[in-house]
């Protein structure tokens, strides 16, 4: 599923959120949107989902995304709605609705849900109330719901921001496993080091524009990445060759 974005603009109440974006997203790759808060990353994800109004053109397989109802795209929000009184398996089962029709889970679907729960390390917790889960379990449940959809494309808004280091890796490994099965992944991520570790491609955004776009290994050393963060980051390379990005503390901050 090839996505091509041409001259994408989006304004809300006179404020420009996305400004003249043009790019292509190849199927099967993991692209990561990186940039400071307010850069328009989440809005761009919503445009790619097809739920936001925009001007310009965003085509998936040649059809504008908001009109293409055949696509199977999953979305994992940063701040989830956590419904009360619903169990993990019921929540994950909601992801099957597009395939089976609402409220008609087939027995194959129930098998598939069991598989997804095993894959995300949630099997055995299916009867537990979702509102009583820990942050890490919650995030895995959100992703399990998206996986239950068997999507061709999965959009994730800061999938790791609520997690400790160990669980961050766990969630990202899950996504990498999915990517190996041919699913296209587009995520936003604040941790640029992790983004460079997992994503094939990094798209740097600032104030609604794309500043830089290319292979992760190149973008991470680019001056545009520093510009996007007001030159307040340092990029080091470890002995293993892996790049590490950390925030810089200026002298003037100490006063």
């Amino acid at each position, binding site marked *: 599923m090839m996505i091509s974005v041409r001259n994408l603009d989006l304004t809300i109440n006179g404020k420009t959120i996305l400004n003249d974006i043009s790019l292509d997203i190849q199927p099967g790759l993991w692209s990561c949107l990186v940039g400071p808060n307010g850069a328009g990353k989440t809005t761009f994800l*919503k445009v790619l*989902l*097809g*739920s936001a109004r925009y001007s310009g053109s965003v085509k998936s397989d040649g059809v504008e995304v908001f009109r293409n*109802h055949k696509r199977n*795209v*999953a*979305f*994992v*929000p940063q*701040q*989830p*709605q956590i*419904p*009360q*009184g*619903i*169990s993990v*398996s*019921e*929540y994950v*089962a*909601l*992801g*099957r*609705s*597009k395939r089976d*029709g*609402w*409220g*008609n*889970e087939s*027995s194959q*679907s*129930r*098998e598939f*849900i*069991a598989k997804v*729960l095993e894959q995300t390390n949630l099997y055995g917790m*299916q*009867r537990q*109330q979702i*509102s009583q889960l820990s942050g890490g379990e919650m995030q895995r449940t959100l992703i399990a*719901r*998206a996986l239950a*959809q068997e*999507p061709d494309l999965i959009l994730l808004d800061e999938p790791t921001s609520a997690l400790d280091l160990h669980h961050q890796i766990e969630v990202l490994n899950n996504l990498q496993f999915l990517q190996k099965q041919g699913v296209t992944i587009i995520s936003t991520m604040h941790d640029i080091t992790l983004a460079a570790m997992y994503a094939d491609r990094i798209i740097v955004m600032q104030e609604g524009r794309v500043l830089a776009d290319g292979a992760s290994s190149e973008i991470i050393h680019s001056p545009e990445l520093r510009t996007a963060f007001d030159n307040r980051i340092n990029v080091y390379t470890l002995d293993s060759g892996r790049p590490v990005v950390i925030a810089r503390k200026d002298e003037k901050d100490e006063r």
Partner: protein
Amino acid sequence: MKGEKRESSARIQGISPIWNWRTTFICAALLLLVGLLAISFGPIHLRFGEIIKTLLGMDGGLSGQDRTVLIDLRLPRALLAALVGAALATSGAVYQSVFRNPLADPYLLGAASGAGLGATIAITNAHGDVYSLLPIFSFIGGTLAVLTSFFISGKFFAEPQSLLLSGIAVGSFATAIQTYLQQRHSSSLRPVYSWILGELTVANWQIVTWSSIYILISLGVLISISKQLDGLMLSDEESFSLGINPNRLRMIAVAAATLATATAVSASGLIGFVGIVVPHLVRGITHRVTNRNLLTVALAGAAFLVLADLGARTLLSPAELPIGVITAFVGAPFFLVVLRRRRTL
């Protein structure tokens, strides 16, 4: 092969909800039973066998005064109670999921206060028989109040909570005018008051017929979209990704639930508690939050109100208790027990 199959069925244990037909069936049976009781008991006791024969048009049925009591008094009243109960319970369940608020009730968007104002205007300005005009006035009042809430909030598409707030504001405004009118015309205080507490004494075939049209249509709509309403438990983007247009779905759901509520209020006054208690009761019994059991909720609401009306008619006979008193009196403790057992809403 066989072992594999057994293993897989063990694996999917506790996974994925199934439609709970059993509860639906029990509620339907309960409604029938309660309905039969309701038309049988009263100052004149009618026998089950004769009632059934009369209803089926067989020989040996009731005749004379007994027949009139059954056909013209008790039957329309029980039917109206069932319709109103089903309408309030279902709208309550739908409002709760649309606004993602377990405390939402059918009167939330000002339908009740608007209808109350309409009824008060009718009662305080009427000459002669007001009761035939009451339903029309309160229906207009209720619908106008909800439309005003929609109009003021404007941001419904961005934020369902703002609709909720404007509903509360419109509701208080309507109540204020109503209280003012009530004080100005203190002679009509009593009929207004008894209408506010809810009553089904005015039930006749005419009211049953027109309210059944609106209520059955809106319940049909709500039950047909009930499975998709589950999608509103997710964030808007997630439900969109599952093929739902969340704003359109909310619009349809709120419109249908409001029509049902306004009709119920105009036919019977304000009957509290049904819209909150019955949905949670069904959820508590089925251990399930989803809207798939909306039909069960409707049947349970109908049975609950028919039973409550039976109590209202017979407990202090020949005097009548307002049915709203019964629903709260029975509903509240029962609700608390379920709540305590479940510990979550």
